[in-house]
């Protein structure tokens, strides 16, 4: 028996000695990032996943780049100008190399757009088609010049081109789309693919011939870690260097840890309660206004979001083009809320239910319900699991009476259209507009602003829209939020307002 035991112990020791201890701190030439999951493909045109875009931008370049200050910068295009309302000219950077050694040409640029637009084809393969559907044709003028021709004036073109990676035509035609999306992804970006182990990690290595010059880190690893507690534990033990979306309750813990700190920045995400304008009580404007007066936005921001947020007047955020700084947010005024509620025919209050699937924001959601209850809009909050049942209930069937709390990220497009159209336009695609919001004349104004290129002409229309929706109050307008990264103290990197992880800017710190 004792002999048995001792041999077992010896065996166990031997086993442990053989095992590499992967918890040991990463070497300095590797930057490891935790993402909740991986996109289905590395092909930058064939998915629409934030987690995929974050990987793609470090492997591929687009015609334009967006600086951390949100200005357009040259990338694969060195200069650009509008020749008329529908034709844009781009000069291409010369001598840019793909990871396989081939030189990028105007052919590759045209090919990249064509594989998404698929001219003449009925059914489009790429989920990004909707983003650039306005582009009718890409014309090669000469080796260094292309023209992008849109079917009508398309003011969002620049924004869309910031993430529209250029891919190598000859390479994809040789290896096929499937290999390109999994094992043979080739771009012009700072890092090239080494290995992708699905749901484990994507490993990249720096590309020596990258046109910006070599990045500070030789290797970048994107690990897929679905659980927040796990990624925090990895951060604290050096298993990963950057984690995203740190919530308010974890801020101090990570900030005060000897090995980790945070970097936080306001981002383009706006919170609101979509009110159901089809049914009572929110079919009455005064009741919707009452709901807006009932919310103490500052209290929520200060007490529940660690002060990381700003109250908003409507859903259009200060950072977005078209924002009207002249309009003031609804103040917190419970007395006025009660008056308006009485005016709307509910002197004794009214019972409502609000729904939400924003599970990370449950405490805030419950606080909103409480504040509404205090002025007489007695609210039951119903929390849903984000998933099929919720999507069906809310989006497909529009049954979330009397309203739904949620937030919108604008697809990282800094333009009023990117929030107004998807939320309030009544054509399919408008989450709220499809069922809940009915503001007379709003569709027409959104369409009008969309069809103009001249910023000077678009701006007044957006001002009118914001006045209109502030007055009509199709939603309770709440606040913006910050995105906070948890970062190893060995890494110098700043969170960006567009939530991108542009790791070329990351440097080792001593």
């Amino acid at each position: 028996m004792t002999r048995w035991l001792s041999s077992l112990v010896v065996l166990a020791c031997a086993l442990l000695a053989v095992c590499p201890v992967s918890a040991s701190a990463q070497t300095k030439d590797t930057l490891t990032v935790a993402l909740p999951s991986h996109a289905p493909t590395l092909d930058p045109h064939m998915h629409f996943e934030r987690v995929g875009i974050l990987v793609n931008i470090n492997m591929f370049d687009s015609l334009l780049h967006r600086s951390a200050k949100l200005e357009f910068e040259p990338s694969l295009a060195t200069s650009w100008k509008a020749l008329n309302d529908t034709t844009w000219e781009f000069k291409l950077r010369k001598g840019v190399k793909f990871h396989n050694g081939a030189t990028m040409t105007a052919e590759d640029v045209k090919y990249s757009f064509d594989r998404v637009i698929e001219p003449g084809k009925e059914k489009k393969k790429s989920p990004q088609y909707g983003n650039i559907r306005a582009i009718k044709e890409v014309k090669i003028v000469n080796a260094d010049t292309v023209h992008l021709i849109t079917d009508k004036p398309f003011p969002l073109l620049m924004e869309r081109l910031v993430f529209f990676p250029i891919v190598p035509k000859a390479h994809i035609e040789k290896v096929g789309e499937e290999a390109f999306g999994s094992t043979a992804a080739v771009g012009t970006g700072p890092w090239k693919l080494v290995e992708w182990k699905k749901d484990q990690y994507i490993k990249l290595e720096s590309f020596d011939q990258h046109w910006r010059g070599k990045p500070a880190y030789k290797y970048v690893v994107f690990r897929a870690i679905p659980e927040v507690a796990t990624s925090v534990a990895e951060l604290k033990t050096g298993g990963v260097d950057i984690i995203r979306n740190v919530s308010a309750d974890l801020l101090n813990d990570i900030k005060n840890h000897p090995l980790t700190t945070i970097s936080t920045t306001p981002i383009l995400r706006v919170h609101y309660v979509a009110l159901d304008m089809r049914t009572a009580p929110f079919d009455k404007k005064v009741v919707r206004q009452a709901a807006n007066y009932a919310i103490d936005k500052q209290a929520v921001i200060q007490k529940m979001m660690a002060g990381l947020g700003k109250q908003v007047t409507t859903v259009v955020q200060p950072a977005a083009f078209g924002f009207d700084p002249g309009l003031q947010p609804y103040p917190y005024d419970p007395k006025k809320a009660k008056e308006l509620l009485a005016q709307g025919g509910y002197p004794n209050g009214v019972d409502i239910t609000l729904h939400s699937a924003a599970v990370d924001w449950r405490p805030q959601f419950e606080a909103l319900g409480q504040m509404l209850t205090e002025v007489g809009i007695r609210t039951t909050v119903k929390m849903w699991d984000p998933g099929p049942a919720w999507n069906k209930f809310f989006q497909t069937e529009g049954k979330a009476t009397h309203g739904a709390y949620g937030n919108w990220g604008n697809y990282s497009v800094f333009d009023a259209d990117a929030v107004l159209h998807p939320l309030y336009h009544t054509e399919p695609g408008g989450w709220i507009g499809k069922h809940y919001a009915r503001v007379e004349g709003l569709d027409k104004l959104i369409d009008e602003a969309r069809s103009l290129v001249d910023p000077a002409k678009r701006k007044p229309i957006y001002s009118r829209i914001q006045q209109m929706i502030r007055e009509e109050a199709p939603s309770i307008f709440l606040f913006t939020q910050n995105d906070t990264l948890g970062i190893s103290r060995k890494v110098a990197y700043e969170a960006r307002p567009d939530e991108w992880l542009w790791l070329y800017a990351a440097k080792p710190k001593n």
Partner: protein
Amino acid sequence: MTAFLIRRFLRFIVVCIGVSLVTFAILQASGDPVSLIMPEAPEADRAKLREALGLHDPLPTQFLRFVTNAARGDFGKSFFYRQSAFGLVVERMPTTLALAALAIVIAVAIAVPVGIVSAIRRNSVIDHVATAIVFLGQSMPVFWIGIMLMLLFAVQWRVLPVSGWDSWSSMILPAVTLGAFSTPLFMRIVRSAMLEVINLDYVRTARAKGLTEWFVICRHALWNAALPVVTVIGIQLGLLFGGAVLTETVFAIPGLGRLIVRAIVQLDFPIVQAGVFVIAMIIVTANFLVDILYVFLNPTIRLR
């Protein structure tokens, strides 16, 4: 014996059909995948996609197509990955099976000796401590045990990796976590099974023959107490797969559970169907094997 096997096999088939019907029905009731695949697309494009996916056909047609294809291992392409759903499931299978197997090994390795000891030293301190641990173990959710083990062993003491699935050392915490899920039940079963046989005549006879206590326990008593344990392991396999979902999520393991959970959230019908189907098959097969094992462990069982 043959009739017994045939009967079991027929039951196996019936269960398979039941499983596919349920899988099919649940997913039918849960919304429109097209609006998730093409969130920005206009209605015309969505209609075309629905057409291409066959979502317009009447339900019986869809079900029939589903069953005939499933029999060939063809669940269609994942909406999300655009690859064969069955292939994706099979790709993740070994990881989850390895995790479940390790967990069972750990659970048995702990539960059997402790169960035996608490049976033969009934009402002793060891028995009471073991019972207390059983209660504790069964009242702690898997993900909580996982995070606690991680905080202790990986963050506090730094002896094991936090997460991942790339070395032996990274498999220890998840396997223990998932094993902890089954250990209490196993322990309980071993204890009561031992108590049942330990005072029977043949055990007393064995003792009377002058055999050592250990030999009596291990050869005579345990062999007969093994029967309910084997059954429970078979049944536990299903629960283990359930527990594996959480364990895989907590420890970032690229297994089947994680694949399916994500597919459910994304309304990726083919993966959910393939995954549930494959797991159901494994469980049904395991139970089938347990039935057969029974016969060998206890020849007195009637083959009904």
